[in-house]
């Protein structure tokens, strides 16, 4: 059948099972938007900025495991996607972005709204394509979806010249196998690797699992749990790994790293075997590499071979799909008595509890940690939360205890302020039956708050909690600790967020007392469509504990216990 390039795009998206596309029209992508009107299978969400569209597609992908799709025009439309693409790349989120490009006849001539988008996105995509022949289009789209979702997932961009969208060809969907001679994601471990890993695990006295995002991407949650339970091996999470094991599970210790639990970092430094499952030893979880986990052997199971021995040298690296490898290992893991090790960790944990702000007497101030803990309680710990970047992001990770996988979405690798709210909108499209909360800071929210209009236009039932301390709080915290309290450009003069929301047609409340949190959360939950709560919190609060950048992992700045003075406490 004769089809235009624009029609072929939608024919292919339908066959890929795409149901929603986040985008923004413009000159070079107009033929494709025009053709969209002939297809009923797809719902298009009109963002108010292409960055918002990219984060929405990313949020959709992170809650569903399906490929998120974003669409934009050439030039500025495409460059506005860039932050969203880089965010997805760093966090291995599967995404396909379509961008319009100037006609093939104008390529390279600096035409109006021409940008070399495949050049710009080369280092921040898993792969990208420039389509100059309509006969290549269907095959490229099919290949792009395959590359985006398999192996270590990631964003793929397809840049399509405007005349290719208009040109017609005989369309036959390519059903045959893809020819990707250089692309074969790994699966199982070799028998030798299995044997060596088993010996190391069964011989260890103080093992600890470092469970990352890869557990979720691989769908290895059940296998991880089995591994921990069989072997009495405690498990800790990276920020993006949160949810890969229920927070309440007896073998789950919680988050590691810069703002991780102090006892988890102590356990890492004291372990005799670290089992890195689908994580990449980011500097935010290792601290000083020279002193990192000095007494431990290390096993790294990871789908991306280039992550093994990149930051931390390991004794055994296994390139494979975590779920498949754990299925090989689990039957061979012996049930060892590790009570001495677990008791030791319990003792460290008790010390942490004594310092926890939640257990300290309230002094009337509303703290970010309080707000997030209360949202956790009044949503029964069962919502999908999408955080932005900064102090509130760490409090979310510490005080919202996730029992289910794929319920915390956050920009971990790139640390993209402005991610939270649009990603929450995308998440709601992915999981319409789930309760979705965007937990954002007052700084980051203002980077993408134009998407309030999208939320209203689409009547997206997402609740927004602004943890508003009128500061760029995490930067302020660094300035307090490391820049002698010179608060350069971190105080914010904010708009009235309640009025701002109301201007967009979003009902909103302001809360500045702990006792009002519950009612506000309940009202947000009972209100259909978007709802915003501006939580005005203590300005000079600190996220504890903190490993200063580049410091040894167990040299944490700890929250003072009630009996000690704030200034002098280090452990």
């Amino acid at each position, binding site marked *: 059948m004769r089809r235009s390039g624009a029609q072929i795009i939608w024919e292919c998206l339908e066959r890929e099972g795409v149901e929603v596309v986040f985008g923004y029209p413009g000159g070079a992508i107009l033929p494709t938007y025009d053709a969209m009107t002939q297809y009923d299978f797809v719902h298009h969400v009109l963002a108010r900025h292409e960055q918002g569209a990219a984060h929405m597609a990313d949020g959709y992908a992170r809650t569903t495991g399906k490929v998120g799709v974003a669409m934009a025009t050439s030039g500025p439309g495409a460059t506005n996607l860039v932050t969203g693409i880089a965010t997805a790349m760093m966090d291995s989120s599967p995404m396909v972005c379509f961008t319009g490009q100037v006609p093939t006849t104008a390529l390279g001539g600096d035409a109006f709204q021409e940008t070399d988008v495949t050049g710009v996105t080369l280092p921040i995509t898993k792969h990208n394509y420039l389509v100059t022949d309509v006969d290549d289009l269907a*095959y490229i789209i099919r290949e792009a979806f395959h590359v985006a979702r398999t192996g270590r997932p990631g964003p793929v961009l397809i840049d399509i010249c405007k005349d290719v969208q208009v040109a017609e060809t*005989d369309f036959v969907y390519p059903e045959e196998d893809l*020819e990707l001679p*250089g692309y074969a994601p790994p699966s199982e471990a070799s028998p030798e690797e299995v044997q060596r890993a088993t010996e190391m695990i069964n011989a260890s006295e103080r093992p600890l699992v470092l469970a990352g995002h890869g557990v979720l991407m691989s769908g290895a949650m059940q296998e991880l749990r089995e591994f921990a339970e069989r072997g009495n091996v405690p498990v800790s999470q990276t920020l993006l790994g949160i949810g890969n094991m229920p927070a309440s599970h007896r073998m789950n210790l919680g988050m590691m790293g810069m703002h991780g639990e102090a006892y988890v970092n102590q356990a890492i430094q004291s372990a005799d075997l670290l089992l890195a499952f689908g994580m990449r030893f980011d500097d935010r979880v290792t601290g000083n590499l020279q002193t990192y986990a000095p007494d431990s052997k290390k096993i790294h199971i990871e789908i991306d071979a280039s992550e093994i021995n990149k930051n931390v040298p390991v004794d055994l690296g296994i390139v494979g799909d975590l779920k498949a490898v754990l299925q090989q290992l689990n039957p061979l893991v012996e049930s060892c008595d590790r009570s001495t090790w677990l008791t030791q960790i319990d003792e460290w944990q008790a010390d942490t509890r004594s310092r926890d702000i939640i257990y300290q007497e309230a002094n009337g101030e509303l703290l970010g940690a309080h707000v997030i803990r209360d949202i956790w309680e009044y949503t029964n710990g069962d919502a999908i939360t999408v955080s932005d970047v900064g102090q509130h992001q760490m409090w979310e990770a510490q005080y919202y205890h996730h029992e289910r996988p794929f319920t915390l979405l956050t920009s971990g690798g790139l640390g993209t302020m402005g991610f939270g709210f649009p990603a929450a909108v995308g998440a709601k499209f992915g999981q319409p039956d789930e309760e979705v909360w965007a937990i954002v800071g007052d700084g980051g929210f203002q980077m993408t708050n134009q998407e309030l209009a999208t939320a209203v236009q689409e009547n997206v039932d997402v609740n927004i909690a602004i943890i508003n301390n009128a500061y760029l709080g995490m930067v302020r915290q660094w300035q307090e600790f490391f820049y002698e309290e010179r608060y350069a450009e971190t105080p914010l003069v904010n708009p009235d967020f309640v009025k701002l929301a109301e201007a967009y047609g979003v009902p909103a409340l302001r809360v500045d007392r702990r006792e009002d949190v519950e009612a506000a959360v309940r009202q947000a939950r009972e209100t259909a469509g978007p709802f915003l709560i501006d939580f005005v919190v203590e300005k000079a609060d600190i996220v504890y504990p903190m490993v200063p950048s580049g410091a040894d992992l167990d040299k944490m700045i700890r929250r003072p216990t009630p009996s000690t003075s704030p200034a002098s406490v280090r452990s």
Partner: protein
Amino acid sequence: MDHTLVALVEDKPGVLNRVASLFRRRNFNIESLTVGHTSVPGVSRMTIVVDADRTNAHLVEVNLNKLVNVISVQDVTPDRAVTRDLALIKVKADATARAEINQITQIFRGKIVDVSQTSLIVEVTGTEEKIDSMIDLLNPFGIVEMVRTGRVAMVRGEKSVPTMNGRRPALKSVS
């Protein structure tokens, strides 16, 4: 110490750019990179010499492998491999110097491929060390211009860099 990697890549637009961009982004130090056709249509071959003192050659190998258009990568350093570099060297040469330069060229089994009143172009093939030695000998005459291809390599014996059974990796046209 350097490492020699041989990569087979799909002959598609932008592949060299992807490889070069990877080296830049990952801060890899590369001594040389050569590209050319292979016996299989649609497949090109790159020989990449990595400065292994400053760059972990294994990381280069596994990162190259991540590129969708890279078919295979092999570190041939531990193998017995034939490695060759080719140089064209334009040397100042009046009538009196020609004989001596000719003699040096003979010793290195090179060829004089161009002669003018005042200069010669010498072509020489061999290991990089051999060419370096020849350059040392030609330097006193005055080298006007020089170009080297950079290292190409092939493992000796039956062993070969995995190809793709003669299949051509090309986009399937849908029409």
